[in-house]
């Protein structure tokens, strides 16, 4: 710092601005950001690989745990692909219930985002208020599915729980309160001076860059790109819903905030339509455990943007390949662009504005250096043997660990 006028500041993997471990290395000149280095991969859990080891039914619950916020998005996206391969036609009532849960999830996700955004710009009051109101929708979700997150309502061929008339009334009651509160938030976000000062002109992404960097979801819509899978490629019951795709021309963090709070209002309308037009009938059809060979790609508009799942089946009860492209992966490149020439103080809100979910995004990245002669692929067994040898060389012996453990358990 003494010698050069540029210095690097590590934001992450552990930092108060980030809710999940991810590394942003900022090159600073004074308060100005000269360059950003983003490194993903701190949260890799190997879910795609684990899916191949489990049956389709088990996979639903695993896929649901990709993300804590948009759990329904991932499981619906996966199930749509499986149902397409199996050629199942899902009952209409089930599609309506999926849509209902999806919109409730969007409401909960956007309210959560509003609070996080408030916290990132040091406006904790907004955080406390919006999270308090978020409890209403969380309670509704708990009432409908039994859980506040990871609802577990999807199953191949339909949904697992029906919705009763009393539950419908509860939802409408909650939605009415939330609508009033959201109107207030729209007022706060568009009129409070310090919020506007911190948000407008920050993290600008213009129309062309949005297309070039392939941003999705509210991030793209805030730059005027009319891109919403619910309209472009309707799934579940969205083709029968009447709603607007909210766009905004600001292209900055302010625009993203406006898009999200206005989307909340649309979501309330969709929830009302779902409840009003929900047809009677069965909620699930029986699907054989073995899915015929084939492959399918499924798209879904998660609260954060377009979620893509690819499933390849081989005629057994386990998938051959599952590939997840979470919305954050599409948006993360745009962050680097948005942060250019901004101030350090803008960094938390710019990153938060894409509503990042790093654990959804993280993949194992293998760096292959073709010039390196030692570069070779290891089999699982070789890697296992190597790890045992590595620890042995350092005086730690894991080889007899299982045996010792068994002995001790039997002894006690």
């Amino acid at each position, binding site marked *: *710092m003494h010698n050069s006028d540029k*210095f690097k*500041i*590590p934001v992450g993997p552990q*930092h*108060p*601005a980030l809710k999940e471990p991810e590394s942003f290395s900022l090159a*600073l000149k004074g*308060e100005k950001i000269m360059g950003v280095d983003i490194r993903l991969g701190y949260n890799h859990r190997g879910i795609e690989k684990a899916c191949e080891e489990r049956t389709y039914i088990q996979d639903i619950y695993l896929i649901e745990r990709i993300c804590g916020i948009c759990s329904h998005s991932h499981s619906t996206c996966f199930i749509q692909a499986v149902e397409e391969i199996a050629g199942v036609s899902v009952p209409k009532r089930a599609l309506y219930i999926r849509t209902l849960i999806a919109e409730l999830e969007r409401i909960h996700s956007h309210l959560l985002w509003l609070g996080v955004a*408030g*916290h*990132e*710009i*040091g*406006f*904790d*009051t*907004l955080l*406390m*208020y919006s999270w*308090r109101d978020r409890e209403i929708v969380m309670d509704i979700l708990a009432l409908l599915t039994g859980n506040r997150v990871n609802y577990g309502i999807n199953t191949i061929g339909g949904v697992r729980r029906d919705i009763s008339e009393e539950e419908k009334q509860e939802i409408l009651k909650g939605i009415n309160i939330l609508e009033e509160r959201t109107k207030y938030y729209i007022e706060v976000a568009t009129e*409070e001076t*310090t*919020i506007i*000062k*911190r948000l407008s002109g920050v993290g600008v992404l213009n129309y062309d860059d949005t297309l070039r960097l392939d941003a999705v979801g509210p991030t793209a819509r805030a730059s005027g790109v009319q891109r919403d899978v619910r309209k472009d490629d309707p799934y579940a019951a969205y083709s029968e819903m009447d709603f607007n795709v909210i766009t905004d021309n600001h292209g900055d963090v302010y625009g993203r905030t406006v898009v999200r709070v206005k989307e909340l209002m649309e979501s309330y309308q969709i929830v009302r339509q779902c409840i009003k037009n929900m047809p009677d009938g069965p909620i699930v059809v029986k699907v054989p455990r073995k899915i015929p060979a084939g492959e399918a790609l499924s798209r879904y508009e998660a609260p954060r943007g377009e979620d893509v799942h690819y499933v390849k089946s081989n005629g057994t009860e386990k998938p051959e390949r599952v590939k997840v492209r979470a919305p954050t992966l599409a948006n993360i490149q745009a962050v680097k662009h948005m942060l250019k020439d901004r*101030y*350090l*103080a*803008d*960094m*938390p809100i710019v990153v938060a504005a894409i509503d990042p979910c790093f654990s959804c995004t993280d993949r194992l990245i293998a760096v292959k250096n073709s010039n390196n002669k030692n570069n070779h692929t290891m089999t699982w067994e070789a890697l296992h043997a190597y790890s045992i040898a590595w620890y042995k060389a350092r005086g730690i012996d894991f080889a007899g660990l299982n045996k010792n453990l068994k002995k001790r358990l039997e002894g006690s």
Partner: protein
Amino acid sequence: MIEALFSILIFPGFLFVSIFGLIAEYIDRKLYARLQNRVGPPWFQTFADFIKLLGKEDIVPCDATVRMFNSAPLFALTAATATFLYIPIWKAQNIFSFNGDIIMILYLLTIPTLAFFIGGWYSTSLFSRIGSVRGVTQLFAYEVPLFMAILSAALLADTWSLKEMMLFYTRHPAYCLFNLAGFAVSLVALLGKLEKAPFDIPEAETEIVAGAFTEYSGKRLALLKLTLDIEMVAGSALLVAVFFPFSLMFYPALGFVVFIIEVLAVIALLALLRTVVARLRIDQMIDFCWKYLVPFALFQLLLNIILKGVLYR
């Protein structure tokens, strides 16, 4: 001699001001929480936090300049406590009072900020350094309007002694109304001094962790936190003494109560202000101070110069 020691160490010195500071922090936090629709801490929370921190491990970073790192919290605490000694609470016969002490008080109030800068800078962490540089940058923005607002009140009273000033306003309580613009300016500037929202830029937790305090832990952090509390009390007490010195009108015991209530009211105002705003950026903060606060303070100064001409004729 004994009386002096008593007033330095016990009342209204270190012991009293520490306890008052911790209570004030509790009131600030509780009010902030209630305004945000939260429950807030129980009454003993600030004391428990302080005692807990005293018992925690004290870590000094390898690269830190140990002497500076260790002495910064002590300097800050001493200066903040000393400020309070110069503020007459309920009697005009303050033993440390002299002509010009109002300059001294403002000077003493600046020392904690500089001590935080030194402590943050010498702890060598990047976050600390950015935080401490921000703290000093901010100092240049709020200090000028604060000084102008407070000194314009002194100008009207025609004295540099806080005691004389308080006596003057006690004789002419209505004159306090002329200084309302100055009070508003110094209230906002005090938010900057205390590093509270929207001016909590030097310790913006989502950007630079805890700013200058990042590397501090254990006893030193406890002292720093206590310094912030005492600074809050001393700053609010200064505002009360300059702008609303009504405590001298009453008998000592009642005057004391009035003074405490007034200080707590200022603290409540500060809590209210920081509830309704987002944190500004450092460039926006400096813009705000020079574009809005300084003209207001100048207006107050001009008003008092004119008033002085009118009233003393």
